C-alpha cells in the first residue's frame, strides 16, 4: 500500500523549514486558522514519476512579505516582489523536497513556480492539506495528486 504523507507530516516538515530559516522557534508556526484569502502568494513544485502531483504553499501577502524579509534579513517595508517570489519559491522547494522524500519514488521535482494569487493545478486534486498561522497570518500547505493516479 502506498503511503501518502499525512496533514501532520506536512505540518512537521513546514515547521522544520520555518524554524530553520525564518523563526528559529518551533512555536512560531501554529495550527489552525481560517485559510488564505484572495490576496495571497502561492508557491508550487510539481512531482512527476512514481508519484505525480504537486506541493502547494499558499500564504497571505503580508506573510509572504514577512517570510521574504526574514530570509533576506531585510525590513518588511523594503521587500520587493522579486524577493517575495524568490523566498516563496525556495520555501515551497524545501517543503516540497521533503514531502517528496516520503512519497513513492523515484520522482522528479520541478523548479518552483510562484504567483501572486491562486495557482491552478489542472487535473489534480488535493489529497492532504494543513492550515497554519504564522505571525497572525494564514498559511496553507497542500499535497495534490493527478486525478488519474489518485483513482
Amino acid at each position: 500500500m502506498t503511503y501518502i504523507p499525512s496533514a501532520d507530516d506536512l505540518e512537521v516538515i513546514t515547521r522544520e523549514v520555518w524554524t530553520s530559516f525564518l523563526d528559529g522557534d518551533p512555536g512560531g508556526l501554529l495550527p489552525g486558522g481560517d485559510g488564505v484569502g484572495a490576496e495571497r502568494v502561492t508557491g508550487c513544485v510539481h512531482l512527476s514519476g512514481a508519484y505525480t502531483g504537486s506541493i502547494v504553499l499558499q500564504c497571505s501577502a503580508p506573510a509572504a512579505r514577512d517570510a521574504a524579509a526574514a530570509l533576506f534579513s531585510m525590513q518588511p517595508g523594503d521587500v520587493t516582489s522579486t524577493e517575495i517570489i524568490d523566498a516563496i519559491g525556495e520555501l515551497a522547494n524545501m517543503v516540497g523536497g521533503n514531502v517528496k522524500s516520503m512519497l513513492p519514488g523515484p520522482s522528479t521535482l520541478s523548479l518552483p513556480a510562484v504567483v501572486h494569487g491562486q495557482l491552478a493545478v489542472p487535473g489534480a486534486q488535493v489529497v492532504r492539506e494543513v492550515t497554519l498561522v504564522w505571525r497572525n497570518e494564514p498559511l496553507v500547505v497542500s499535497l495534490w495528486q493527478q486525478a488519474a493516479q489518485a483513482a
Partner: protein
Amino acid sequence: MVIDDSSAMRLILGRIMRGLGFDVVEAPNGAEAIARLESGSMPEIALVDWNMPVMDGLAFVNAVRKEEKWRQITLMMVTTESEQSQIVRALAAGAHEYVIKPFTPDAIADKLALLGVLAY
C-alpha cells in the same frame, strides 16, 4: 563557491561560509559556476544545489569531475533532493558530501569539518 538559483539561499549559505572564514563567490546555476571556474576562480569548496535552471547541480558535478584541473575542488550538494537514489547518484558522480535542506549552520560546519576543509 555557493551555487543556487535562489538568491535567498545564496545569501544564507554565503553568510554561513563567511562566518566560517571563507571568501565566497556565488553563481545562480551550474553554467555560470563553470564560467567562473573557466575564468580562473578556483574555490576550495563548492556548495551545489541540485534543481537549478540552465545547468543543474548533478550536471555541474559531472562537468567538474571530468576536468583534471578542477579535481581539487571539494563538492558538497546542498539540496532538497533527499531520495536515497538521488544521494547515491550525486556521490557516484563525484560529490563528496550531501546536505539536505533545511539545514542549520552547525550542520554545514560539521560537514565541512568532516571533509577536512574546516578545522575545529
